């Protein structure tokens, strides 16, 4: 317990770093996921911008990246992270790598949620002369908003999960804190403290996500 009290400043720093990593990856990964997910949805057979080759490539890419365990993806994508962020280590490198992995995971969630929109409402929009961009902005995204918010809430938890291994490439955060000060020092109380903070964070975000989704669905 004393060890934990001594480590409190580090704990807060770690919590801040986790928030930093997760917030940025939620933004970039979420945006990437939205674009790739829309791409998958729009180019699939029978959709408004049907494009078989493009769908094939996107689909393959998503299936290719998604099954790679994140810690391996982190190592494999390091040269790319270095090229983009200027460094293969540290918080920015891990933000890049998580955002990349999350884009593909989120892409599937976005695609699935868009598929729940009844094709009939797209027909209705087309029948009054709406073009693809307008259909995306005024039909697809608003009609799927509730499930999409829940999807983003779901991916948030996955981001916290991925951020835990940041320590392996010199990043920080609660995961790193738990490993460095708790697991390696044989001090379970320190580990549990980090776990507790993560649980609080995830619970808060899940409640908030549910609340927003309820508002979007008007239930």
């Amino acid at each position, binding site marked *: 317990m004393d060890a934990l009290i001594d480590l409190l400043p580090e704990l807060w720093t770690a919590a801040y770093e986790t928030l930093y990593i997760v917030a940025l990856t939620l933004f970039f990964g979420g945006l990437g996921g939205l674009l790739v997910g829309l791409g998958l949805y729009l180019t699939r057979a029978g959709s408004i911008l049907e494009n078989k080759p493009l769908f094939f490539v996107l689909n393959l890419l998503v299936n290719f990246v998604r099954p790679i365990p994140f810690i391996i993806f982190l190592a494999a994508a390091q040269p790319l992270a270095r090229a983009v962020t200027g460094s293969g280590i540290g918080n920015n490198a891990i933000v890049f790598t998580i955002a990349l992995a999350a884009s593909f995971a989120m892409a599937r969630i976005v695609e699935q949620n868009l598929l729940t929109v009844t094709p009939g409402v797209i027909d*209705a*929009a087309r029948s*009054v*002369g*709406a073009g693809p961009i307008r259909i995306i902005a005024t039909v697809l995204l608003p009609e799927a*908003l509730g499930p999409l918010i829940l999807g983003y809430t779901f991916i948030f938890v996955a981001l916290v999960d991925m951020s835990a291994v940041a320590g392996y490439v010199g990043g920080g955060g609660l995961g790193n804190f738990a490993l460095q000060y708790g697991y390696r020092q044989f001090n379970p109380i320190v580990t549990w403290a980090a776990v507790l903070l993560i649980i609080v964070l995830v619970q808060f975000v899940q409640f908030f996500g549910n609340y927003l989704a309820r508002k979007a669905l008007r239930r």
Partner: protein
Amino acid sequence: MAVVSLRNVGKVYPPTTKDGASVTAIDGVSLDVEAGDIYGIIGYSGAGKSTLVRLVNALERTTSGEIWVNGQDIAPLPERDLRQVRLGIGMIFQQFNLLGSRSVARNVAYPLEVAGYPKEQRAARVAELLDFVGLADKAGSFPDQLSGGQKQRVGIARALATQPSILLADEATSALDPETTHEVLALLKRVNAEFGVTIIVITHEMDVIQTIATKVAVMDQGRVIERGPVFDVFSNPQCAASARFVSTVVKGVPSPAELAVLRLRHAGRIVTLAFRDSAVDQKEVFGELSAAGVTFEVVYGGINEIQGRPFGHLTLALTGADPVIDRVLEHIRTLTTVTEVR
């Protein structure tokens, strides 16, 4: 002038699998819809009627033939140019297809937004339309708070927003109960009468055709097998499929099975008389029978009315001496068609 004119239109779907066969949904259909018509297209599921109507506003593209809409062949137009064409064609759907994320008023405003109406004009037009369909008090409601009939009325208001000259109704009442169906059909009739909108109605229910259509085309396996004014097709269907549709709303000539049942109950001679319009005077026909001393009983059939014109078949069981019956039937044959069923 025909506002919608299909010329030898075909729609073939490519095979879905490598060894699959292509599917012909529409097989050389030609059809003229005149301004002000309520044109019914009836057929069983899979007859191609929904595909046909979706070709008219190019939700589906034709694979052959010409589709003239308001004097323009839209078949070769690229998607971009079609958006302008679609502003002149409203469409309503079986499942209503309202935007669940928008209020009733914003659903009706949607086509106006797409067409680029200024905001103030939109509000006025939406109020006018909701008033017309009788849902002024539901402007702020969301689609999931409405009944099926109300949803379809919102659909109609939305379809009319940009003042189209043509309205396509794709099974618009098939998800509604009979009473609501008649409310919606009455509204469509008003749309036709008050705004002069030409309506194309797709349905599998002959009742819908009987209630509102002025002309009808019967579709089977991607072809139009019979067409004409509704009265003609109802009172004198030319092909078996049409006759089957007519028999769903009109009790006409008894089928062999029904006749066998009638035979069990009635020992005498059984004849079917056709009544069409006021050309045949029932009083005269029945007067002849009574005057000759032949007693009769109506055992099957009925008289219906389409657009105020009566028609139907009555099957009678006659009792009396054979020579007397022969003589009186001889005379009635000069008044109408008599079929003796044995």
